[in-house]
């Protein structure tokens, strides 16, 4: 009995991976063939980008601040408080800016996308769209995926900037160190590979967040209770996949720029 259950679950897992891969691949390729719904892209870019801006700025600012706060104590014991700026900038740009922005956008937008599309499924709005001759993949999924990729790229830059400013605020006003030195060290410590790494990640994270959310939403079954399950699955899986993808991308980038 237990073997049968494991067997069935394993098959279901493999089928889900296959289904998700085909789904997300098709949604991505739709951008290169007409019709492309640019108006929907702009609406989603506004919802995802502008709507997430404030929380991303806040998270970035205070993460930079806490990095400066925590690191300064340790760096002080080595007499190296002057490198606080470098530490904060590198941490934010290489890792934290992209990952935290991804997690925040996942929490805010993956849930809303999955619940919106899930509600449309259970109220037959998706079927109605198909019956009216409109492809929901092109109309709903493709614009969300490209809006998420584009906006996550810019939101990560904003988060990085706010993080460096947050670190500067703590360094200058709380640790009473030299601001010029902080920014100078931050700038000097950065290399092309760091910035490239930091800006490649959000492209993947945006794709993961939106494709997982759209997939969860459009595969909703079981009425309103199912919408709740889809929303949870979208947030959990997109967050977990962001962390896994972050590790894999870091590994690849480090091996390229060793």
């Amino acid at each position, binding site marked *: 009995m237990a073997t049968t259950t494991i067997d069935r679950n394993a098959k279901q897992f493999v089928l889900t991976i296959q289904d998700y891969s085909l789904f997300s691949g098709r949604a991505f390729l739709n951008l290169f063939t007409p019709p492309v719904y640019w108006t929907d892209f702009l609406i989603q870019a506004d919802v995802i980008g502008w709507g997430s801006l404030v929380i991303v700025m806040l998270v970035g600012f205070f993460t930079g601040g806490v990095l400066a706060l925590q690191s300064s104590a340790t760096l002080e014991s080595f007499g190296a408080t002057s490198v606080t700026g470098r530490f904060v900038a590198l941490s934010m740009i290489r890792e934290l800016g992209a990952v935290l922005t991804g997690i925040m956008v996942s929490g805010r937008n993956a849930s809303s996308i999955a619940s919106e599309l899930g509600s449309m499924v259970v109220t037959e*709005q998706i*079927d109605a769209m*198909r*019956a009216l001759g*409109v492809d929901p993949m092109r109309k709903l999924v493709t614009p969300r995926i490209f809006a998420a990729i584009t906006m996550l790229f810019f939101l990560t830059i904003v988060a990085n900037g706010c993080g460096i400013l947050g670190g500067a605020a703590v360094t200058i006003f709380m640790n009473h160190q030299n601001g010029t030195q902080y920014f100078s060290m931050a700038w000097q410590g950065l290399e092309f590979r760091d910035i490239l790494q930091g800006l490649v990640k959000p492209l993947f994270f945006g794709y993961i967040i939106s494709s997982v959310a759209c997939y969860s939403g459009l595969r909703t079954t079981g009425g309103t209770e199912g919408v709740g399950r889809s929303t949870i699955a979208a947030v959990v899986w997109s967050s977990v996949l962001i962390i896994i993808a972050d590790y894999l991308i870091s590994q690849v980038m480090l091996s390229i720029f060793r």
Partner: protein
Amino acid sequence: MSRMVVPAQKEAVAPPPNGSPVVEMRGVSIAFDGPPILQDVNFTIEPGETRILLGPAGIGKSVLLKLVNGLLRPDSGSIRLFGEEITRRREDLLFPLRARTGMVFQEGALFDSLTVRDNVAYQLIQEQVSDDEIDSRVREALSFVGLEQTFDLYPSSLSGGMRRRVAIARALIHQPELLLYDSPTGGLDPVTSYTIIELIGKQRDVYRTPSLMVTHRLQDAFMLCTNRFDPAAGRMVPLAKGQTDPRTTFLMLSDGRLIFDGSLHELLHTEDPFVREFLA
């Protein structure tokens, strides 16, 4: 109940060029993780014909309706829509065929985020028709269902019956060659149900659009069959005693199989015990 406006007459929909049925289902079966929902279903819808699919709730009527325009795919059998085989057709190639059909869903399935105007004009907006033409055609469609005043409203501010009527307007605006109604009066009060059936009768008698209506309400089915829409009076009037509409016929589902296919007279005189029990 207020009388409804009859819009300018348009030409009756032409039958498929080769004279084939509008819909033809042969040996269709489908199952979802369990026993079959439909088994070996065969029927046709001829040009100008209205077919009423009867059966108790949960018997697979809506599934059958969704098979007709390819929203679901059968496990076996053949479905021809407008003379074209759709059973194994790719999803993107089905959209042009679906655009030629109008479908009214059980609860209306209006898009919550769009106004009534944008819901009704959904297909026209996708086709980038000019705003002026959209407004004019939406007003005409809303006038047909007696809801001109809802033009700027959102679906959330409409009653269940009004949503159903807006859904009918949305299905009609593109002048479909086939109409599919999924329990259009389900859950509605008798007065609103009468309005909906009157609209369906009007579409049948004024435009002669072939249609398939799913229902479990016998009174709706019989009313459609024993009345005709009088354009002069702007309402349904009973046919002479003993007369029925010859283009309105019945199908009945039981245990996944089509157990009846015929006229109202044949339905009332069948010996099938399930049909007799259903009619009782």
